[in-house]
């Protein structure tokens, strides 16, 4: 099967299915793509938590090092991105759980669930970082 998926030089040109660049971007399409991207980002981002916990458990020096790296500007940006990915994937997942019940497939619901995921995740991320900076 795998061999038919690639077009080899010299092979007769076969018609290909329309792909991403053919279709107009819709909110459901954008949220589907973002759900996968945030999921993959969280997969690797888990290492941030593990490194922090292991550093904390192994002594003051390691903790200070991780604190300095995570507290730097780049560190904060990465953690901000992780926070957003976490909330976006959580709300996107909630949307999928709604769909698993068979509800929310009509045009208006799809539109509303998609925008609620996008805006809700940004608001929650903003709130968490607001609490961090003023708390």
């Amino acid at each position: 099967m795998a061999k038919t998926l690639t077009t080899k030089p010299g092979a007769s040109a076969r018609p290909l299915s329309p792909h991403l660049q053919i279709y107009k971007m819709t909110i459901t399409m954008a949220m589907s793509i973002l759900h996968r991207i945030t999921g993959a980002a969280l997969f690797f981002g888990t290492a941030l938590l593990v490194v922090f916990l292991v550093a904390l458990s192994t002594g003051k020096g390691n903790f200070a090092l991780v604190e300095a790296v995570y507290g730097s500007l780049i560190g904060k940006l990465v953690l901000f991105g992780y926070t957003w990915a976490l909330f976006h994937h959580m709300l996107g997942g909630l949307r999928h759980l709604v769909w698993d019940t068979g509800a929310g497939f009509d045009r208006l619901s799809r539109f509303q669930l998609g925008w609620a995921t996008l805006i809700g995740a940004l608001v929650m991320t903003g709130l968490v970082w607001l609490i961090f900076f003023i708390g």
Partner: protein
Amino acid sequence: MQQASSSLRTPASRVRGLGAAKSGTGHFWLQRVTAVANIPLTIAFVIIILMLAKRDYAGALALVAHPVAAILLLLFILSGAVHMRLGMQVIIEDYVHQEGAKIALLMLNTFFAIAMALGATYAILRIGFAG
């Protein structure tokens, strides 16, 4: 039994309900179970991290050593590790079609998920039992 004549599947295959992948709905269901668990656990995790963020070394140790925080962190990392392994498995299966590379990446995926889960578990228990 009347149906058997209209299907190429054996009655035993149909009863087992495992389909072509031989794993039934196990993957799908575990993804959903961990997804549901991850919602409250994620909220708890974010609250714990916010509490940790402003603490010094001794304060951070004391918080992670607290049974409620420790257990919630353990649940979050374990449920998360299972969930992310299933999710990454689907991504690999979608995009990697070369058989050798696919098998290698699927193994790496499992190794990474287990390493993350056990790494965090080791650290949390070490902090908890040290106190």
